[in-house]
C-alpha cells in the first residue's frame, strides 16, 4: 500500500494521459463519425462505398493491430509518428468508425416526416439536417456515445504497447522497478474503475436532463 502512495503522483500522471488520449480520440472520432455518417447517408456511390469500407475494415480488425500498424507499420512508408500522436491517430480512426454507426443509426431513427416538414417550409437539405435532424439525432446518440466514451477509456490501455506512459504503462514501469505486481495492477484497476464510474454518473445526469427538455 505504501508503495502505491509513494508512487501516487506517477500513477496520477498516467491517469491524466489516459484521460487525455480518451478525450482527444473522442473529439476527432466525433468529427470523423459525423463526416462518415453523412458520407454514407448522403454521398454519391463511390463516397458511400469508401465510407462503408472504412467502417467495415476498422470494425473488423482488432484495435491492437490498428495501433501497431499506425505506430510501427507506417514507418515503412517513411511516416514516423511519436507514440502519443500515433495513439491519437489510431484511436481516433478506430472510434470514428464506431461513432459513425451510432450517428447513422440516430439520423435514420428520425422520422422522414421531420425532413419533409422542414423542406415544405423552404429549407435546404443542409438547413434541415442542421436545424431539425441533428438536434434530434444527438439526443438519440448521446447514450451510445457515452458508452463508447467509457469503452475508449479502457481501450486506451492498449497504447501502453507503443510506449505511451498512460495509466497501464505507468503501473508496468513501477512493476519493473519494484518487482511486485499486485499492488500496482490492483491500484490501476481501481483507478480505471473510478474514472469509468464517474463518467457513467455524469452521463446519466446529462441523459436525465436532456430527457426533461421535451
Amino acid at each position: 500500500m505504501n508503495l502505491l502512495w509513494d508512487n501516487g503522483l506517477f500513477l496520477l500522471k498516467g491517469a491524466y494521459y489516459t484521460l487525455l488520449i480518451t478525450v482527444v480520440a473522442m473529439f476527432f472520432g466525433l468529427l470523423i463519425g459525423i463526416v462518415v455518417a453523412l458520407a454514407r447517408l448522403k454521398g454519391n456511390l463511390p463516397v458511400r462505398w469508401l465510407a462503408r469500407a472504412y467502417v467495415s475494415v476498422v470494425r473488423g480488425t482488432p484495435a491492437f493491430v490498428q495501433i501497431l500498424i499506425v505506430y510501427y507499420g507506417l514507418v515503412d512508408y517513411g511516416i514516423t509518428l511519436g507514440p502519443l500522436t500515433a495513439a491519437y491517430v489510431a484511436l481516433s480512426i478506430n472510434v470514428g468508425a464506431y461513432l459513425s454507426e451510432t450517428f447513422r443509426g440516430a439520423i435514420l431513427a428520425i422520422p422522414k416526416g421531420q425532413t419533409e416538414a422542414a423542406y415544405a417550409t423552404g429549407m435546404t437539405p443542409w438547413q434541415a439536417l442542421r436545424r431539425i435532424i441533428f438536434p434530434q439525432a444527438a439526443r438519440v446518440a448521446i447514450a451510445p456515445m457515452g458508452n463508447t466514451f467509457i469503452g475508449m477509456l479502457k481501450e486506451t490501455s492498449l497504447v501502453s504497447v507503443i510506449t505511451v506512459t498512460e495509466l497501464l504503462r505507468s503501473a508496468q514501469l513501477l512493476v519493473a522497478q519494484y518487482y511486485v505486481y499486485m499492488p500496482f495492477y490492483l491500484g490501476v484497476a481501481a483507478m480505471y474503475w473510478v474514472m469509468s464510474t464517474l463518467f457513467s454518473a455524469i452521463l446519466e445526469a446529462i441523459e436525465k436532463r436532456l430527457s426533461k427538455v421535451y
Partner: protein
Amino acid sequence: MMIQTNGLSKSFGGTEVLKTIDLQVAAKEIVVLLGPSGSGKSTLLRCLNGLEELSGGSVEVNGVRVASDMPARKKSAGFREIRRNAGMVFQQFNLYPHKTALGNVIESLLTVKKLPRAEAERIGYRLLERVGLAAKKDEYPSRLSGGQQQRVAIARALAMEPSVMLFDEPTSALDPELVGEVLEVMRQLAQEGMTMVVVTHEMKFARQVANRVVFMDGGIIVEEQEPESFFRSPESDRARKFLNQLSEH
C-alpha cells in the same frame, strides 16, 4: 392560375401512380381532393411542392414552373421557391418535437427568411393567436393535444406567408372531438381568401367550404364538379360507388 399541372405523371418503381394529371386551381379557390385510399391524392399533393420527384409533365405554382425534364439543379431550385410559396399540412402534423409551439412556427422565419429573432417571434405569436394557441407558445408538442398540434402546424405553414396551402388529410389522425377545432381554423383561412387544396374525408367541410371537388381514382382525375352537384349527382360510376361506400359508414 395559382396552380397548374400539365401532364403530370408519377411512378414508383414500375407502377404508375399518377397518370397525366391536368389540374388547375385559381387564386382563392378551395379545392377538395376526394378519392378512395391509394388513388394518388397524397402523391399529387406532394408532387405540387416537390416532396415527390416528378416522373413526367410539369407543375406550376404561383408563376414558378418546374418540369420533369429540367436539369436536377433547376428543379430543386424551382421547388424550393415553390415551397416558400406553398404551405403544407400533414396528416401526422410532423411538428418538430425539440422545439416549442412558437419555436416550430418561427423556425423557417429564422432559417429560411433569416429574420431577426425578435421580429420572428412577434410574427409567430400573432400566428399562434390566429389559431387560438397564444397561451401555449412555450409548450413542446408532446404536451399538446392532436388538435392543438395540428393548429400549430397550420400556423407554422402560414409563417412563410404562402399564397397556397396544401392539406393532406389534416384531421384523419385526430380523435373525433378534436376535428372541429382544426376545421374551424381552415374555414377561417378559406374566408380570408387563401388558395387551398385539401385532401379530406370530411364531407361536410367539402360541401360547405369547397368551390370545387376533384374526384380521383386509380391515378387519374375522374371528374370535377361543384360540391353541391357532385354530392347530389356524381357523373361517374366510380364516384357514385365511392360516395355510397362513404355513406354506409
